[in-house]
């Protein structure tokens, strides 16, 4: 069922970092958006608040439909959207995960000091650009998947990659879900998805995906930073990519099925991209099993790239593994639907949490936080733009229970790509960045222009709201020195 529901939204201030969109019309729950006054001003310009309200219309929603502080206009769900659904009454929506299933971020720490390598960034970045394919090019010729490999990869995720010699078993301990999402069924993945993904494992893609080398330039919680392996001045690497064509095709295949399923189950859709099916229906179960394959591709992808980043450190700077000791700090998913247990109004409930451009942020003591971090909380990785900062946080012990332990995933775009190109017409962004000590390699000048720092909100503002709203706690700030983009 389609509708033209599109009322003027009411917006009520809750406190200095959150707002309520009260339930009305076809909404089944309130919307809650985390933003300060400055961020809220930018949100009023696009349709993302309407999108929060639209998600609140879906059946079986538990708690509010939420927008994290980096929320912006998406397609269907807003980017930065979080919503949980009851397993009996609720729905699962491929649009609430997105095309790039398990797009996510991985952070590596090293034993290297930024000051020692700052002047040797250019050769590292150029080598990295060769070693880790991006843009339109296919993946490396030394990594092609046959169907047998793909089946194992799709069900074993990062563990498959480690078994194939990419990285070490210790890496696995510091990945969300241990690098593999259970319940994956490769038989539900189409021939097309396999065809798209076959040559794309070990590639970053284009758009906002990247691999960035940088360093820790400020520490807010010294005891936590030390525990997760971050030290002032230490070189770090951030990998931001997802499930490539494999995941995009899985999403598209199931969106088409869900258009029909939504009609059959008589679900009201304020936007067709929100099409969905009951979690317990055949369509819902099949989507979750196919989605897990996509998620596992993304875990394997970041694992393979991690291995090539380590090789690049060795090749570009003549190091041995014991010299750099590049370790996985953590790896988070920020486009995913997961069945999780949460305490809501004092009661434990199993819910299917959709995070579309949002990160899980489990608090200290949570059983799913790796042993080594259990008492400090799950690390949360929030990359900013390529000229300023990125942040490392941990889940907050006092996070509001209705948030399902969720946090933002980035800075959020401020300018569309078109406006970014207009704004940079008379500038040479790569040169400006190089002058400020940040070396960029990209498939095209256009990509660099579209992704220039001011195209994004200042991630500091976003993270400050996160910290104030107790969604997560600031641990460290990272600054970029070199970036490769597609």
């Amino acid at each position: 069922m389609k509708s033209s529901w599109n009322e003027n939204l009411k917006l009520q201030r809750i406190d200095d970092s959150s707002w309520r969109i009260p339930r009305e019309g076809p909404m089944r729950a309130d919307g809650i958006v985390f933003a300060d006054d400055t961020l809220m001003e930018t949100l009023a310009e696009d349709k993302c608040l309407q999108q929060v309200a639209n998600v609140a219309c879906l059946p079986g929603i538990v708690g509010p439909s939420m927008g994290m502080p980096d929320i912006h206009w998406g397609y269907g769900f807003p980017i930065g959207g979080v919503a949980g659904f009851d397993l009996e009454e609720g729905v699962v929506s491929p649009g609430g995960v997105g095309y790039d299933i398990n797009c996510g971020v991985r952070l590596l720490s090293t034993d290297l000091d930024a000051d020692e390598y700052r002047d040797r960034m250019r050769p590292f970045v150029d080598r990295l650009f060769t070693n880790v394919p991006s843009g339109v090019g296919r993946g490396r010729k030394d990594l092609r998947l046959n169907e047998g490999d793909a089946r194992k990869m799709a069900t074993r995720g990062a563990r498959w990659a480690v078994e194939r010699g990419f990285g070490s078993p210790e890496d696995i301990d510091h990945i969300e879900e241990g690098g593999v999402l259970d319940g994956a069924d490769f038989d539900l993945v189409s021939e097309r998805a396999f065809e798209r993904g076959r040559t794309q494992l070990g590639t970053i893609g284009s758009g906002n995906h990247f691999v960035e080398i940088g360093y820790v330039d400020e520490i807010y919680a010294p005891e936590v930073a030390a525990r997760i392996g971050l030290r002032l001045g230490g070189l770090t690497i951030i990998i931001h990519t997802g499930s490539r064509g494999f995941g995009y095709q899985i999403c598209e295949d199931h969106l088409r099925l869900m258009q029909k399923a939504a009609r059959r189950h008589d679900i009201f859709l304020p936007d067709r991209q929100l099409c969905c099916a009951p979690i317990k229906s055949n369509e819902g179960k099949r989507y979750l099993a196919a989605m897990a394959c996509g998620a596992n591709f993304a875990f394997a992808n970041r694992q393979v790239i991690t291995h090539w980043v380590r090789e690049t450190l060795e090749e570009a700077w003549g190091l041995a593994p014991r010299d750099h000791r590049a370790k996985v700090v953590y790896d988070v998913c920020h486009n995913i639907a997961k069945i999780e247990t949460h305490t809501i109004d004092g009661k434990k409930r199993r819910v299917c949490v959709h995070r579309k451009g949002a990160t899980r942020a489990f608090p200290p003591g949570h059983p799913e936080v790796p042993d080594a971090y259990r008492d400090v909380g799950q690390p949360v990785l929030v990359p900013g733009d390529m000229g300023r900062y990125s942040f490392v946080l941990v889940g907050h012990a006092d996070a509001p229970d209705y948030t399902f332990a969720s946090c933002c995933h980035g800075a959020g775009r401020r300018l569309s790509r078109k406006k970014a190109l207009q704004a940079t017409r008379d500038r040479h962004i790569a040169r400006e960045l190089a002058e400020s000590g940040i070396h960029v390699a990209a498939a095209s000048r256009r990509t660099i222009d579209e992704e220039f720092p001011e195209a994004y909100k200042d991630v500091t503002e976003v993270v400050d709201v996160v910290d104030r709203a107790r969604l997560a706690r600031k641990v460290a700030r990272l600054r970029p020195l070199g970036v490769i983009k597609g």
Partner: protein
Amino acid sequence: MTYRLVDHTGDTAVELSAPTAGELVREAARGFCSIVVDTTAAAPRPVEGVDLELEAEDGESLLVDFLNELIFLFDSRRLLPWDVEISEVSLDRPARLRATVRGETFDASRHVFQTEVKAATFHDVHLERTAAGLRTVVVFDL
């Protein structure tokens, strides 16, 4: 008969308008190419052909499906779908398209790659019948 890229904060949308359903489909292909590559960098050489046959419940779904076919062809075969030869098209219910996509394999020495397109979405897609023909906006995930 035009396509026009429209501002969208996170992604990109293309506005299509044409007097007929066939022309709208051709504009959709041109709009797609203009996102993926710099269309001013090299003259199109529509030398390869791929036959397509699509059916969908309505015109909106057909257009989205068609664009996703083009995305698949580019992602799996590197085919730049410059133009479309239409044999049969209807954007009424049930919608139907029989056509040959004419294009060429992406060649890094001639073509300037701009960005990868993940998918064409169903977000807010409405096919309008206007005095001048047909008009719609399709949002892409980049």
